[in-house]
């Protein structure tokens, strides 16, 4: 089940510039776990894994641009 952003904006993998990423590629994530943020016009929305599994790969880089429906990360 891939993780998709419903919103357009800028994708962040970390909660803050000096922070550790929410998750790394290869990490096991729980259903509902936050894997990143999307900023749209200064409002931040969390991007969550819908189901549990292993996050194989991010398709959007940190600070990358997302459009609605874009796959942010591939899950196993």
């Amino acid at each position: 089940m891939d993780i998709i952003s419903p919103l357009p904006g800028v994708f962040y993998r970390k909660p803050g510039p000096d922070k550790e990423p929410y998750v790394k590629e290869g990490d096991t994530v729980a259903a509902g776990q936050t894997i990143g943020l999307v900023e749209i016009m200064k409002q931040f929305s969390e991007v969550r894994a819908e189901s549990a599994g292993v996050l194989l790969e991010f398709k959007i880089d940190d600070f990358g641009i997302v459009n609605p429906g874009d796959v942010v990360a591939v899950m196993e």
Partner: protein
Amino acid sequence: MKKLLIANRGEIAVRIIRTAREMGIATVAVVSEADEFAYVAEVADEVIVIGPPPAGLSYLNHESVLRAAADTGADAVHPGYGFLSENAEFARKVIAAGLIWVGPAPESIELMGDKSRARRAAQDAGVPTLPGTQSALSDDDDVPSIAAQIGYPLVVKASAGGGGKGIRLVKSAESLLETIEIARAEAQAAFNSSEVYLEKFITHARHVEVQILGDGIDFVHLGDRDCSMQRQQQKILEEAPAPNLPDEIRKRIRDTSVELVRKAHYVGVGTIEFLYDPTTQEAAFIEMNTRIQVEHTVTEAITGIDMIREQLRIASGEKLGFTQNDIVFTGSALEFRINAEDPANKFMPSPGTIDVLTLPGGLGVRSDFGFTAGKSVAPYYDSLLGKIIVWAPTRQAAIRRSERALSEVDIQGIKTTTGLLRKLVSLADFENVKHHTKYIESDVDLIGGAK
């Protein structure tokens, strides 16, 4: 000053270019890749793309902005509001590069950026402040007894905070220490400083502010404004002068604000913000902003003074050239912020292409927008599309004129706050000045049903 680089975007970049053109100063717009075809790129003399859409990689990138200045031969930088406007480090780099910084000295930015130092400076100048700690809390402080002296409810504020960020409410003694701990952690994360201080909280406060202007030697105020119509501490409707303020309060906040900037040898425009408690008729210092503000237009409307012109003149080294007695206040002005947000859906940002943009006209109506029809609103930046400013000889006439002006607004393709603004200006509570900074959030009809 021959060529001015504007390190900003949207309506304020267009606003600055308009005045620069009138003064015969050439303009350089720096834009991100997302703003290459923005309206500002059409009105500037030169346009330089400085980086990818995220602001951190473009509008906030010191080196990219300075390189654009060097490449275009600009001799001055205007930071607008937000972005780099209150960044002392960037101001120093601009000055070190031999350019004119259109703003106060970096030391002034730092003084007012540190909320507890600013509060102390305000007290030294006789500016009224709320009961609270003199400076940031230290580990040896007996916090519970300090808090008891101030009284509840109180707020914990981050020293490095501002613009409504880094504030937490404490309703009673039970949650005091826990809230301070959370506030410290939040302040550390957001501002890289865990310093916090305590201040009394006013439940139903109005937000009033004083506009000052100075050249480092002579100082004047340009009157006051009221910005009490806010949502989540973001202003959406402002006016000048502040209505229903007792004469002695108005005089005190104006005079002490001038005293504060005189003591600081301040250069340029600045705003001293106050909370005003209509019940006790007391005003108290919140913070000072060391930049041009979004709502400067209402002050321009009642004074006839072009504040960007004053900024550019003073930054060039000219004297203020007039005194307080030369400033005449005439009539009443309101400003309405048109944001690309959907009030019917929790103010969700609404990026997209603007299909129709019909703005109002007529006597006493001004529209400052960063967009025209056919332009796209990018999802990366602030949602402010533009402002409608309405002037009339009296406040009541300004309200009636605003209702008429807002009824002419037609924006299609994206959702905007226009409908909410129409409701707000027609409220009896607004006309009677019964509103306060939490008014919008406390009225379900306003945030739920606005179209």
